[in-house]
């Protein structure tokens, strides 16, 4: 279902959004720069939880501020929120489905090294699905011609 209108208009105002609310964009940029400084200085303290909060926590805040104030997501139509949520849910699903395997360093009869290479830790490689062929057993009485 669409409405038609002349394409060659020059007006920036669109009926689906209206004018963006007046915001002090320079002030918002200033806050983002301060947060950037925090994210650089925080990890220098060498304390793990402070590094996690200042680097990744601040990144989330910065991303939220850009999305809300610069992309005007706070006044965007609900359909946009929904399609973005679906995409973000796919990310979470991907992580939830793969992380248990990918993040494991070792399993039953195998382990991974830093280069993603799997090696078998069992004394009998063929039992763990290795490429080496087991020794051929001696032929029995029935196998002999």
């Amino acid at each position, binding site marked *: 279902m669409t*409405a038609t209108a002349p394409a060659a208009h020059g007006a920036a105002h669109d009926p*689906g*959004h209206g004018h963006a609310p007046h915001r002090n964009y320079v002030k918002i*940029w200033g806050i*983002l720069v301060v947060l950037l400084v925090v994210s650089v200085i925080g*990890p220098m303290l060498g304390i793990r939880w402070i590094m996690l909060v200042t680097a990744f926590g601040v990144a989330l805040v910065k991303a939220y501020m*850009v999305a809300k104030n610069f992309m005007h997501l706070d006044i965007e*139509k609900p359909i946009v929120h929904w*399609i973005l949520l679906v995409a*973000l849910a796919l990310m979470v699903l991907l992580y939830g489905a793969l992380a248990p395997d990918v993040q494991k360093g070792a399993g039953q009869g195998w382990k991974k090294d830093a280069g993603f290479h799997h090696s078998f830790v069992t004394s009998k490689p063929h039992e763990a699905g290795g490429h080496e062929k087991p020794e051929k057993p001696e032929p029995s009485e029935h196998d002999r011609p």
Partner: protein
Amino acid sequence: MSVKTIATQRASMNIPTGRLAVWWVLVSEIVIFGGVLVSYLMHRLGHPEWGEQAAYTNLWAGAFNTLVLLTSSLAAVLAHQAAEKGDGPKAARLLYLTILGGLIFLIVKSFEWTHEIQEGFTLQAGGFWSYYYTAAGLHAFHVIAGMGVIAWVASSAKKNQELHRVENVGIYWHFVDIVWIFLFPLLYIAK
């Protein structure tokens, strides 16, 4: 001259077609970048030793590039503000500033990569470096594409034409900025 009529508004959603299209593009981009970032994150958590490789990335270059992209985003949103007031030439000037930000970002990145490659940290130097070049390279490709589209939009905005596109291209540029906001701590800070 006949009037060209195309669908410019999705009536059921009350949202301009162009802007809705940009959001759909961003949804696909979230899936692309999200896949790379989530994949990196789970491998990074599974390989704590990657922190030693990450220690060689240049924190200050990454921080400076973050500042550059944040500033270019400011220029883009001010261009949108100017376009809403019907001031096309001012919007165009601000869009050219946005492009300048993208150019500075790429120059810094090229110096950074040249140095790292000379030090032997190539794409095949290890798991971390594979992700580093893939994620940052994919992002740089989006910066280049954005600069091209912004230049095209600025050329028409300068003549006070198609000013609604200023907002659309700005939304894309802010997304590129957000991706970098996450890449910066992942690749430069977590060591």
